[in-house]
């Protein structure tokens, strides 16, 4: 009997371990997938750089050639023009597109004389340097050298030319600073909107309302909100909040506020639910005790019940923030997909996950950068997670 029992036990154990390992492996695979695809693009520059590259149209009037030799230290991959004293190399930008980077520029290169062509009067020297991108060089006498043909062809073209009509430099774009900031804005504004309403609602339902038809109707209406797929919220945002914000603010299109409002609606049931749960956990004896001390309902709720529910509400908020960060379907409509660098709350811009979404819509999709942004999202969530845990731990410890 004991043996049979042991065997059954072992079978169950094996099933558990198997299922758990499947679960853990599947989950790790996603993390692994995200990291293996995205890690190589993850660097500080990505986080703080602009998405849009800065372009300079350079002109040069009478170049004086000094013919400097190729330095020996230069890598083989670098193509070099003696005439112009410049070394170029092929590379790829953050979105996986080919780019050409200035790897070397000699001290007496005529290109150092290049001025800003768009500022004809002052002819301000641009002062190009190593690390700049050369996106094209056009000539008077022949076809433009384009990035798509590669650095070698560009060097060949330039080497055989004495005059340049225009040379376009740019910084390296594709940074996600704007999306990060938008995401943070969105989080803050959404929380600022949804938290008070959600908490008030939860308080009303849990503390103030009497048990009647109306209350249960309100409650089930709110619960129904949970079942609405987020894409429908997006349409709601598009149909209601975008016009609303445009009507009542300086906004002219979908904007961070309209996005926040939409997200707020999505979050309301979540916040209400988790707040209600944590209000329910507050022992009734606290309420009775406070009332028995001659406090009124409001004092009881604000001074005793809410603070006790605080850790629970924090956790609920964290969950909500996770939802904000992860939401894309709704935001595509309610805030739009425009990636921007200058963020204003009534302006267009987009969040990290919509950024991922638009990267996926690219032709072809940029899986690597999408994964990198996913890593960033993970890091943000992790940080929030830890912060919330610390706060509520401290809170619990102190009181």
């Amino acid at each position, binding site marked *: 009997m004991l043996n049979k029992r042991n065997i059954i036990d072992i079978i169950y154990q094996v099933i558990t371990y198997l299922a758990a390992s499947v679960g853990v492996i599947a989950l790790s695979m996603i993390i692994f997938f995200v990291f293996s695809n995205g890690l190589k693009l993850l660097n500080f520059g990505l986080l703080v750089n602009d998405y849009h590259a800065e372009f300079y149209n350079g002109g040069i009037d009478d170049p004086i050639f000094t013919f400097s030799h190729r330095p020996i230290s230069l890598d083989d991959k670098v193509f070099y023009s003696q005439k112009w004293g410049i070394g170029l190399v092929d590379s790829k930008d953050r979105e996986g597109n080919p780019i050409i980077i200035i790897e070397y520029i000699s001290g007496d290169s005529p290109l150092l004389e290049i001025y800003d062509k768009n500022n004809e009067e002052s002819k301000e020297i641009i002062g190009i340097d190593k690390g700049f991108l050369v996106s094209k060089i*056009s000539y008077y006498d022949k076809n433009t050298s384009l990035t798509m043909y590669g650095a070698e062809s560009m060097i060949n073209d330039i080497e055989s030319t004495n005059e340049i009509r225009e040379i376009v430099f740019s910084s390296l774009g594709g940074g996600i600073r704007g999306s990060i900031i938008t995401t943070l804005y969105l989080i803050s504004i959404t929380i600022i909107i949804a938290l008070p309403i959600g908490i008030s609602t939860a308080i009303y339902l849990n503390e103030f309302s009497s048990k009647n038809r109306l209350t249960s109707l309100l409650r089930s209406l709110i619960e129904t909100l949970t079942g609405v797929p987020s894409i429908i919220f997006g349409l709601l945002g598009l149909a209601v909040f975008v016009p609303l914000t445009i009507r009542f603010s300086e906004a002219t299109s979908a904007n961070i506020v309209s996005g926040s409002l939409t997200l707020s609606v999505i979050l309301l049931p979540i916040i209400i639910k988790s707040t209600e749960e944590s209000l329910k956990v507050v022992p009734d004896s606290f309420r009775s005790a406070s009332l028995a001390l001659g406090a009124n309902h409001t004092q009881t709720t604000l001074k005793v019940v809410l603070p006790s529910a605080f850790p629970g509400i924090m956790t609920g908020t964290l969950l909500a923030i996770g939802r904000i960060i992860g939401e894309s379907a709704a935001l595509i409509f309610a805030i739009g997909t*425009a990636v921007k660098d200058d963020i204003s709350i009534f302006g267009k811009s987009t969040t990290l996950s919509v950024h991922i979404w638009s990267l996926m*819509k690219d032709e072809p999709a940029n899986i690597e950068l999408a994964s990198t942004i996913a890593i960033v999202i993970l890091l943000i969530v992790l940080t929030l997670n830890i912060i919330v845990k610390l706060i509520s731990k401290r809170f619990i410890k102190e009181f």
Partner: protein
Amino acid sequence: TSNKEDGFDKTKTVTVYTRDTSSGTRAGFMSGIGFNEATEDNSVLVDRFVTKDNTGILTAMATDEYGIGYISLASLNSTVKGLSFNGVEPSIANVINNTYELKRPFNYVLREYGDYNTIEEEQIVKAFIAFLGTIDGSDIISDKGAVSLDTNYTWDDIKGNHSICSSDNSGITIKFGGSDSIEKIAKALTESFVPKCGDFVPEHDHTGSTDGFKRTQGSEKDGDNAKHVGFASRPFRPDSEVGAPGTQGQLAWDAIVVIVHLNNELIDVTALDLKSIYDGTLSIWEEVIN
């Protein structure tokens, strides 16, 4: 029974991949192969075709040895095999010299003249359209993989006509929208045009070809998502998308490539074969390859 040799088994069924009915690429492709009915109609297609987006088709062809699909030439990469069409290799050169026939136009549409908030906006838009026609503009289009139209003057040549560009426009936002296939090109164009035109602020919000017309001159032109410039990756619909004179035009061609798995033995395909594949007449690879 498997006749699989070299990893490719000709007895297998063809898996047909297509874009959805709202896609400009699909419209271009279907008309290119003489299967116009299929542009917006799924019923004429072979059974159990797979609907995917551009990237989806591209990645599917890297996996599915027996699949066939089509994408923009610009997206073509080495993970799949691009087929010659009617014996012509898919290359920009062949598009330019008009031998490669499977292509579609990239179009733009502007707001009606006079329908701008400020005169400056209208002038910047005009300057931008002018820029599209310059060598500088077409360089950028080519750089992004599309096929630019012929031109022989540079921005430097015409910039005198656009005095607006010599003032500081950094407070002016110009909104671009429409086809997302053109988004990359449009972005590259504005990025490079912005410094040339007083640093105006471009705002890109590409949601689909239909929105290109809708939001400039169509039903949403005064809505919250109104745009200054819209793009469409297909011809404008003659019935519903006819704008004011001089507000619509083409900026480039996009070649469409038929792609298959690298293992596939096929290297060339005719329009007729393609139509037969897509309408289900040819369903086994043997029938196509021989």
